[in-house]
C-alpha cells in the first residue's frame, strides 16, 4: 500500500517522495553515527580503564599472578605464530579454490554446489572448527595440541570467508578482458596469470586481511585445541605448546581483582594495535599492487 502511494503520480505521492528524499541522508547518517559512536565509546572506555596499564611488561613478560608483572609475551608470540601460519595456509588455498570456481568451472553444477557449501561453512560457529581440529588434527593425525594444529584449525576456520571474498574479487574482473585475451589465443593459465589475477589480487588481499583479523580474535576454537594459558616459554617450533591473546584477555577480564580487568583493557589495546598494523600492511601492499598494475597498463 505504502509503496503504491509513493510510486503513484498524485500530488501527495510526489510530496512524500520529496520529503523522503530530503530525510534519507539524515536517517542514513544516524546509522553511521551509531556505528561510529559504538567504536569510539569502546575505544574511550578501553583507554580510560587500561591506558595506564600499558607498558613494556605487558608485551615482554610471561603471565603472572601479580598484575604489576603480568604480561602476554607467550600469548602474543603464540597468536603471531598460529595466525601467521594459518594465513600462509589459508590465503593460497582460498585463491586456488576461487580460481577453480570462477575460471575453470563457472556455471557448472559442481561449482554451484561447492560455492553454496562454502558460503554455508562461513556461518558455522567457530567452536565447531575447534572440535574438528582437536578430533581430526590433534588426535586423528597425531599432531597433538601444538602450534601447527592451531594454525590449521584457524586456516580452515577462515578459509570459507577468504574464499568467498576471492571469488567476488575474480568476478569483478570484466569478462571483456578475458574474452579479449582468449581471442588473441591465450590459454586459460595465461589469462588467469596475466589478466585476471593482477586485477583481482588487491581485493583478494583485503579478503585475506579480513580472515587474519578474524583468526586473531578467536578464543573459542583455541580454547578447545590448546586449552593452555599459563606458559612461560616462547613457542620455538611448529610442535610447541601455545596460547593466544584472546584467551589471556578473557581470563583477565573475568577475574575479581580490578587490576586484571584494567590489564585486560590494556591487552585489548595491544590486540587492536596489532590488527591496525596488519591492516596498514595490507593497505600499503594493495596500493603497491595497484600501482604496479597501472604501470602494466600503460
Amino acid at each position: 500500500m505504502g509503496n503504491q502511494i509513493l510510486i503513484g503520480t498524485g500530488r501527495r505521492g510526489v510530496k512524500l517522495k520529496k520529503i523522503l528524499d530530503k530525510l534519507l541522508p539524515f536517517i542514513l547518517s544516524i546509522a553511521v553515527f551509531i556505528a561510529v559512536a559504538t567504536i569510539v565509546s569502546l575505544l574511550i572506555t578501553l583507554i580510560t580503564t587500561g591506558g595506564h596499564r600499558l607498558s613494556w611488561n605487558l608485551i615482554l613478560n610471561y603471565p603472572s599472578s601479580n598484575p604489576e608483572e603480568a604480561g602476554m609475551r607467550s600469548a602474543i608470540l603464540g597468536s603471531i605464530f598460529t595466525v601467521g601460519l594459518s594465513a600462509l595456509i589459508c590465503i593460497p588455498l582460498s585463491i586456488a579454490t576461487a580460481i577453480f570456481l570462477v575460471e575453470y568451472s563457472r556455471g557448472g553444477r559442481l561449482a554451484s554446489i561447492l560455492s553454496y557449501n562454502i558460503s554455508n561453512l562461513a556461518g558455522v560457529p567457530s567452536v565447531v572448527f575447534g572440535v574438528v581440529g582437536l578430533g581430526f588434527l590433534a588426535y586423528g593425525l597425531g599432531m597433538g595440541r601444538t602450534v601447527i594444529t592451531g594454525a590449521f584449525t584457524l586456516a580452515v576456520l577462515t578459509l570459507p570467508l577468504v574464499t568467498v571474498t576471492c571469488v567476488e574479487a575474480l568476478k569483478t574482473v570484466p569478462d571483456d578482458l578475458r574474452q579479449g585475451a582468449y581471442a588473441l589465443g591465450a590459454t586459460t593459465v595465461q589469462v588467469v596469470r596475466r589478466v585476471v589475477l593482477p586485477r583481482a589480487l588487491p581485493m583478494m588481499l583485503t579478503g585475506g586481511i579480513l580472515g587474519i583479523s578474524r583468526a586473531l580474535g578467536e578464543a573459542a576454537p583455541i580454547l578447545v585445541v590448546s586449552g593452555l594459558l599459563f606458559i612461560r616459554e616462547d613457542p620455538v617450533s611448529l610442535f610447541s605448546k601455545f596460547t593466544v591473546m584472546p584467551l589471556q584477555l578473557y581470563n583477565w577480564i573475568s577475574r575479581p581483582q580490578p587490576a586484571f580487568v584494567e590489564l585486560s583493557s590494556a591487552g585489548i589495546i595491544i590486540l587492536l594495535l596489532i590488527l591496525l598494523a596488519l591492516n596498514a600492511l595490507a593497505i600499503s601492499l594493495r596500493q603497491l599492487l595497484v600501482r604496479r598494475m597501472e604501470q602494466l597498463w600503460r
Partner: protein
Amino acid sequence: MMANPKMVGLILTFLLVGGVVGYITGWYIAGSSMTGRGLTVTETRFVGEGAKTSTITERVTVTVHGLTQTTGPLAGDILIDGSSTVYPITEAVAEAFMKTYPAVKISVGISGTGGGFKRFIMGETDINDASRPILMSEAQTAEANGIRWIEIPVAIDGLVIVVNRENDWVECLTFSELKKIWEPESTVTKWSDIREGWPDEPIRLYGPGPDSGTFDYFTERVIGKLKASRTDYIASEDDNVLVAGVEGERYALGYFGYAYYPYAADKIKIVAVRDDSIPDASCVTPTDETVSSYKYPLSRPLFLYVNKRSWDEKPWLREFVYFYLENGERFVKQVSYTPLPSNYYKMAVATLKAGITDGLYSLSQISMWKNAGPH
C-alpha cells in the same frame, strides 16, 4: 632502524640458534634427572567395592622418595589443565615455583574441570585442577585406561547469594526456598511467590552459565541434581556482568563464587543461607571464617588431581605438589580464595612425604560436614 633487514636477519638467526641450543640443553637436563633412585615398597591390600559382596585385590605401589630429592637440580615438564576457578591459585604457585626452579617448565590450561578431566583420564596431563570431585563416569574411564590418581584438596570456595542493596526484605534464604526459585520449571516469578509478605514484584535472576563448575556445584548441592536448573535467567560466565545486573535492579537475585564477593561488597547485599535439611540449622552469612570451617552451607572444596604415574616418575612434580601445599595458605589468600585450616596443609605434606597418597580428603576434615557437598 627497526626495518634494517640485516638486523632482522641477525635477530632471527639468533633466535633460531638459541632455540635449538636451548631445546637440546633442556632435553638433556630433563633426560638426565629422570634417573633419580627411590626406594620402592610393594604391598597388597584389599579394597571393598561399595555394597557389592565381591572384593577386588589391588596392588598398591608406595614409593618413598625422601631419598631422591638430594640428587641433582630439578628439571622437567609439568602439564596441568582443568578448572578456570582453580587456575589463579595454580598460576600463582607455578610462577613462584619456577622462580626457584627455573628448569622446571610448568604449563597450566583453562579447559574447565570437565574438559580437563577428559585429558587427565587419558593420561595426557600430569595434574588436573578441579572445582568438583571426579565423577563416577570419569573415574571408570580412568580405570579402563589404567590411570590412577591422588586427590588433594587445596582450597575452599563458597557460593554467595546476593540481592540489590535496596532490598530490605530478604535477610536469609533456606535451601528449600532456593530450590523453589531455581529448580527447572519453577513457578516462582514474583518475590511474593517465595514467602508471604514479600513484594508482589517480578524477580530477576542472575547466575553463571551451564559450562561453569559453579553452576554444577549449585545445581547438585541446592537442587539435588547435576545441571538441573531453570533456564529463564540471565546467565554469564563473567561475574562482573552478574554483579552489574544485581547492582542495577531492585528486584534482582543472583549467585556467584565467594572469591569475587570482596570486590563487589559495596555494590550489592549478601544473603545468609540456612540448610533446612538439617534440623536446628541456623542462618549463616558467608565470611572467611564460616566458609573455611564449612559452617556456611554453600562452601565447596577445590582440588588438585595428580596422575599417580607422573607422581612416581617425576621427582620435580612431587616437589611442586609439596611446594603447592606448603605455601598453599599464602597463595590461596593472595588470589582471594579461602584456605583450608593451616594444620591441614602441614599434615597433607607430611602424609604425602610418608608415601601415603590417599585419604587426603578426609584429612581436610571436609567429609565430616554433610554440607561439604557430594563426594
